Structure formats: C-alpha cells, structure tokens
C-alpha cells in the first residue's frame, strides 16, 4: 500500500510539474552552469593536472569522500525509516520551485526592458 501511495504521489507531482517544462528548465540551468563552469575552470584544471598532480588527486578525493559519506548518510536515512521517494520528491519540488522563480523573474525582466525601451 505504501508503495502505491508513494508512486501515486510521484506520478501526481510529475504530472503537475510536467516532465517537459520545469524539468527541462532545471536541466538546462544545471547543464548551462556546468558548461560555463567547465569553460572557466578548464585551463586551471589542465594546469593542475599537469603541474600539481597531487592536488588533482586531492580534489578528486573530495567527490570520492562525499560519495563514501553517501553510504553512511543512506544508512542513517534508512534507519529513520524515511522512504527514498522523499528525496526524489524533494528534487522534483526544487525543480518546480526554482523553475517557477526563474520564469517569473525572467518574465518581469523582459517586461521591464520592454517598458524601458517603449516608454
């Protein structure tokens, strides 16, 4: 029964938010930021990799340590009996929240420019 409820909630939220709209915006923003960061940081990354391999390893260890910590975090979440679907729903919710904010802010900015130009 619990799985049906969770799945129903997820289906509802997925339907409400629309996998085609807010999710696309969220995905685009994340990918865009990732792309920009990649361009900005790429020269530094190459330099670090070429001349400071130890630092390169240490930076790689950051993500690795977080991944390692994820195992313990998952165990703690599991111990509290929190269903993993909640984390999924949280991701969907923030996609919705920042998607809405971003669209509203963009719309207002466009209107401001339009008013400034045409007035």
């Amino acid at each position: 029964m619990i799985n049906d409820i969770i799945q129903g909630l997820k289906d509802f939220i997925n339907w409400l938010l629309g996998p085609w709209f807010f999710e696309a915006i969220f995905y685009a923003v994340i990918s865009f930021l990732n792309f920009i960061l990649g361009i900005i940081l790429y020269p530094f990354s190459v330099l670090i990799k070429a001349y400071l391999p130890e630092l390169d390893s240490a930076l790689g260890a950051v993500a690795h340590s977080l991944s390692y910590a994820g195992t313990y975090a998952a165990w703690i979440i599991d111990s509290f009996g929190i269903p993993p679907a909640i984390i999924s729903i949280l991701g969907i919710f923030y996609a919705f929240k920042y998607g809405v904010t971003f669209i509203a802010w963009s719309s207002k900015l466009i209107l401001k420019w339009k008013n400034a130009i045409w007035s």
Partner: protein
Amino acid sequence: MFKFSLPFIAVISLFTAVFFSVSANAASQYDNVYRTTDRLVVTSPNGKEYDVSKSWAGIVNGSAPISLITGKKDNSAGFQVQYKFNNQIIAVRSIDGLDVKNQSVWNQYTDLFRDKNSWSVSQQTTKQSSRNAVFFYSSLSPIEPLWTPNRLTARPHPSDAIAAAIFMSSNNIITVNISINSQPPYAISNDGVHNFHYDIKNFIFYSTADPNYPPGYAGERFRDSHIDKEPFNPKWTWEVRPSTDFNDLKGTLIARYDRNYPEFLGGDVYYELKKLEDSGTAQVLHTETKNPYQSSPLEYDLPGAGRYELGIGYTGDYPQGFSDKYSTFNSVIFYINWDGKSYISGNNHSDGESCVIDGLICGNDLGGPLGRADINTHNLQNVIAAPVIFLKELPSKVRNCEPISFNFVNTQISLPCMSSLYKQYPVIYNIWQVTIIGAFMFALSLSALRTIKGVSSPDDDRIEVPKL
C-alpha cells in the same frame, strides 16, 4: 537531537543484529537423507546428455495408479515402457529420441501421473550425485515416509493399496520397487538386483498432504505441489565510482548482489562484463564468480569511454530454495561518457522506478532533473559539483542500503540496514512512512504556495538562489 540519535541507533542496531543472528538450526540424523534437485539430466551410456528438466511442466491427468513398470527395447521406436495394473497393461509409452542402441536397459522416464486423489508422482535422475538414482511413488492417497538415518523409503497409507519406487543405479540399471497393502517394499528388477536402498541420493517426491518428518528434522522439505517454473533474476546493483587510486582516477565499476533483498538465500553469483563495440561485436572484459555473502563486491577498473554490458546470474541453474523458479542471466547496458569518471549507478530491481537501461543514467531517480543532468567532473569542477552528485546518488543508495561495518576493539561489527528489520513489522512501518510522507508533503505544499505567492507580486523581482 541528531547527534544524540546516532549513537542510539548504533546501539539499537548492534543489539538487534546480535539478537537476530542468534539462531541455530537444529540438525537431526535424518537431515541428509533426503535430497532433491531441479537440474535433471539423463546421461546416456554413450555420453550424450538429455536435460529432462522441462518435462516437469506436463502432468498427465487421469492415469490409473501404477502397479508395475517394465521396460523393454523397442527396435523401431527406441525404448518402450509399459505401465501395468493388476497385470493389465494400462499404458505403453515409447521414449523417442534416445540412443538406446547396444543397451539392454536404459531409459529416462519423464511421465508424471496424478490420480483421482491428486497424488502426483514422478521420477527423475540426476548426475549431481555420486550415484544416479530415480525414485518413484504412486498411491491413491499420500504415502507415508519411512525415515531411517541412512535412507528414506515409503509405504502407502494403511488404507491404500500401492506405492512404487524406481531406482536407477550408477550403471543405469533400472530396478523397480513395489509396495502393496502397506507391506514393506520389496524389490523386483529386471537385472535381479533387489537391494537398492543404499544408493538413493536424489529423488523427487510430491505429496499433497503434510508428510511426517522426524523430530528435529531440518533437512529439505517435500514439495507439496507442482508449479511451473518462472524466471528468476538475481537482484543486484551497480555503480561507477572514481577509482580509489587517486593517482589514476579512472572509473571503477562496482557491482554487488543485493543482500538486503528478501529473496536472497545464498549461492554463488556469476558476473560478466562486456565492452560493446560500434561494429556490433562484444568483447568480454571480465568474468568472475563470487559468493555474495562471503566476498566483497565485484570491482573492475573500466578501460575508458564506451558502452558496456554487465550481466549477473546464478552459477547454478536455479536459486537455492526456489524450486518453482529458474535463474536467468540478467544484464544492463550502460554508457561511460568520456573517461570513466561519470558517476552513474543503477539496479535491476528498481521497484517501480523507471530505469533507463540503454541510456546515460539508470537508477538515479531524483524525478529526472538531476538524474538526467550530464555533470562532467574535472578536478575543480568536481569539487563544485560534488554536492549535486551526492544528492543525485542518495536515493539510489538509500534504496540499496548497505550494512555498515567497522572495527571496534579488534572486533568486526556490522550494523544491518534497519529497514530490513522494520519490515518485519509492516503495519507499524507503513504507518510511520505514511506519517513522514504526509508531514513532508504538507511542508512542501506550504513552501510551494509561498513561492507562488512571492513570484505573483509584480513589483517583486528578487531571485531566490538555490542553497546548495
């Protein structure tokens, strides 16, 4: 509160683990008497093998109780079997397709019978024991097993008439054992051998009634019904992590059998990793057999970008303890973006979650947004993206929770995932989960309303920045 709850959970986990592990199976001297198998192969004298496992699917209805089975060589159709009742031939079956040339008595019997009292009988042989053996019983009512420390025989119910047993010895000589009117079984055979009880190692036994087991019996149980087998996939998870060798950050594939899955009963698991070439060919990179309980997960350093196929199956032909299922080799295809540093993971039992098999991401189920974001990880970018990746992997890790092991005063302590214990009390667990979800959804709804209310103000152009 949080920092106090961790030691509390650790202590509770420790005690529950110890409590649940303190269980010993009682063993009796009869435990090793009865053996059965689903892997049934008849080996002909010329070395040809016949897998007769599939023949279990067909139960012949309406057959009369069998009193005697004899076999003879049929020149045209191979081997012929006659079923008699009170010296009347009630059925004649010719066994085709077997090479019985130059053999006087050798055959397989694959027929199953069920009489009006729903008593199913059958026989098979196996090469998994040191001696091939076939066992067969038929009766109008459930038979009564006779247990001795070294063997198991049977006789019909006192009110019944007939039970029969067929044995195939190591040299493929068939003998027949008949019991009539509850008398101790006596043997007749076509080769004059009468004493054959000693070499019974494998047989299959059906009974619709609950047979009597010896006191303290902890061996295999008789099957109570015939069920067509269903495919059974091992439950496993996989992921690609940065290599633990920080000087060579190539992706490491980690695959493990899901030990938390309730159907896990043991046995060895076979892993096979292939690199799929664009030409359509596949190159086997690695194969390994592991015992999920006794071994660490499969770890393999991927050579680089490309498409891979990882398959896992039981090494045996069926999962131990699941006589109604047969194991299938289950595989997923995944794609490594560039140098194997992609943090991807998945499983083959996502419990209703969609899992993209031939795509970029499988098993990351943050509703799609994060799961589908292609996050490359150069060294500096790696640090910035680490929290996002952490969140991206978290649901999958919660779902496939791993026990935590650590050393404490030279003692290896393993804390099991508590949900596996909670699930033993499904009502309480469900109520707890519904409560959490309800409270969570309520808070999210309020937050969503506040967001909508905030952005609906035409003069408010503030931007809410995600707090990663």
